[in-house]
């Protein structure tokens, strides 16, 4: 029972301090002359002070925070999920950062992120992380809508991006040079394309390089002779996705694994996720969010897991 009075004492003291401060502040404001003589600089400093005080208050009201970092292909979706999650749960903060799949894997390994995001399969030496498949994304090979070519074989795509097929005429198209548009070195989308389509072959040096899916789509939508690749979820009616070996990139084809260019969106964690991280992952895997995914062009993870469990051997 000893500590009890002590604590009370402290409280009393604090209250006293506060009222003392208040009084002083009050008298300060009562002195009209003094206010009049305050110049602009002082007011600015007060403003700055209030700003800091306010932001300090804000960070105090958040009780827990996790960092989600990695693939910039997943980032825009993750931002949205985080916002929804935070609007439903007060006092939590989900901090979503980009940086790319490799950076996300590194961050979660080092512990600077609670959840890593990767839009490519893990390599052998990264397999010590726990992976949760959030969704699947298709990679679409896109051309201008006016391009008469509707379907390509995968080795034709390979030859186009390697720079060997340089004219649409060789593909039963118009007699026009092909403008190849790719993503920059290091991007997850380029990595996925390199892995799934090119294999060991190099993407041509002559290819135009842009640093986002949006710009690639913009350029392909304006140049009738161009070809590029973007996330299937970002395909709109300004561009035409071509069929690969006769298979159109539809949700169904990706679920059945008939369309070959698909990649997983992974959440990664060092150990079994706990607390807020687990809650957030559960939230993303919930019916509500998974239903949103298919509206946004992604393929919900559950649809594919079901099919995989029906036909083992397929991965």
């Amino acid at each position, binding site marked *: 029972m000893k500590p009890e009075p002590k604590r009370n004492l402290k409280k009393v003291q604090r209250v006293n301090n506060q009222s003392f401060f208040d009084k002083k502040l009050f008298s300060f404001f009562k002195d009209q002359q003094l206010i009049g003589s305050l110049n602009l600089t002082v007011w600015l400093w007060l403003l700055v002070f209030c700003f800091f005080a306010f932001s300090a208050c804000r960070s105090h009201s958040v009780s827990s925070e996790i960092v989600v970092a990695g693939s910039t292909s997943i980032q825009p979706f993750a931002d949205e999920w985080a916002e929804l999650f935070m609007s439903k749960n007060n006092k939590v903060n989900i901090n979503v950062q980009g940086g790319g799949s490799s950076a996300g894997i*590194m961050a979660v390994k080092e512990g600077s992120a609670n959840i890593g995001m990767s839009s490519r399969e893990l390599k052998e030496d990264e397999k010590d992380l726990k992976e949760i498949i959030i969704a699947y994304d298709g990679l679409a090979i896109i051309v201008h809508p006016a391009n008469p070519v509707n379907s390509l074989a995968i080795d034709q795509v390979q030859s186009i991006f390697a720079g060997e097929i340089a004219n649409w005429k060789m593909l039963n198209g118009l007699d026009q040079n092909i403008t190849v548009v790719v993503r920059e*070195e290091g991007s997850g989308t380029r990595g996925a394309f390199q892995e799934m389509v090119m294999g060991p072959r190099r993407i041509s*040096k*002559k290819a135009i*390089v842009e640093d986002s899916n949006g710009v690639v789509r913009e350029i392909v939508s*304006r140049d009738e002779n161009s070809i590029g690749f973007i996330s299937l979820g970002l395909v709109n009616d300004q561009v035409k996705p071509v069929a690969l070996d006769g298979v159109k990139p539809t949700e169904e084809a990706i679920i059945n694994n008939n369309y070959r260019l698909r990649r997983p969106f992974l959440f990664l964690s060092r150990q079994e996720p706990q607390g807020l991280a687990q809650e957030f992952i559960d939230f993303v895997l919930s019916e509500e969010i998974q239903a949103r995914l298919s509206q946004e062009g992604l393929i919900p993870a559950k649809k594919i897991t079901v099919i995989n469990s029906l036909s083992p051997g397929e991965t």
Partner: protein
Amino acid sequence: MARPKSGGDRLIRLSLLLIALSAISVLAIITIFIFEQGLPIMAKYGLKNFLLGQDWFPSEKSFGLLPMIVGSLLVTLGALVIGVPLGLASAIFMTEFSNRRLSGFLKPVIELLAGIPSVVYGFLGLMFLVPFIRKNFGGPGLSVLAASIILGIMILPTIISIAIDAIRAVPDSYREGSIALGATRWQTVRMVVLPAARSGLVAGIILGMGRAIGETMAVIMVAGNAADLPGSLLAPVRTLTSNIALEMAYASGEHRQALFATGVILFVIIMILNFLANLAAKKQFRK
């Protein structure tokens, strides 16, 4: 006029000195940082491979920067070819051939050009210039030509405003003397005014060149960024600055260091160009 030095004067002098030193120290810190990050990888793979290698495939540990070095120089040269004649002609017109009211209207308009953000230039280039080149000259449109034209326009305000100041600084007695000798207006400009204003004109061109070689955003948007030696003016090209900005988002490890090495090379190239240009300006001034 000269007052005895007071304590207040000394205080101001000291604080201004400190401010000046801090500005310079920022430059020093940047330099040290870039070199510290960039030099180790250049040492590891050899300077020759960086400067003369033609393959830029960071994922395969191949870091040839020659296409980007050539790209930067080519695009800058192109910008000067377009920007210098236009800029000097406008400056000459506004100082020597137009009346006060017209030039009083034109000068702020041209200065406004300098205030347009580079991303806007790039966007306009992507929307109008690139399709125009694609339709009329062929190729993908995203090209050396597009980048040169956009940069040529972007350096105009720099060149024009400095050239105007340089030409206005030529004393009127020079012009009067020339006209008194029977020279026409144009002869006066060509043979008297321009030579007298030469060092200022060269300074304007140097600053314009600096802007062109350092510009990044607008160039990324219209140049196509293929890391290959351009075969023609209609081929896409990547500059050193674009190389850094384009790939820094995802670069890690040696790829990231190689981007710093790109910065080192850009730094050295800008130093060399400035040195040469200053040398040229001084030589002409002595004549």
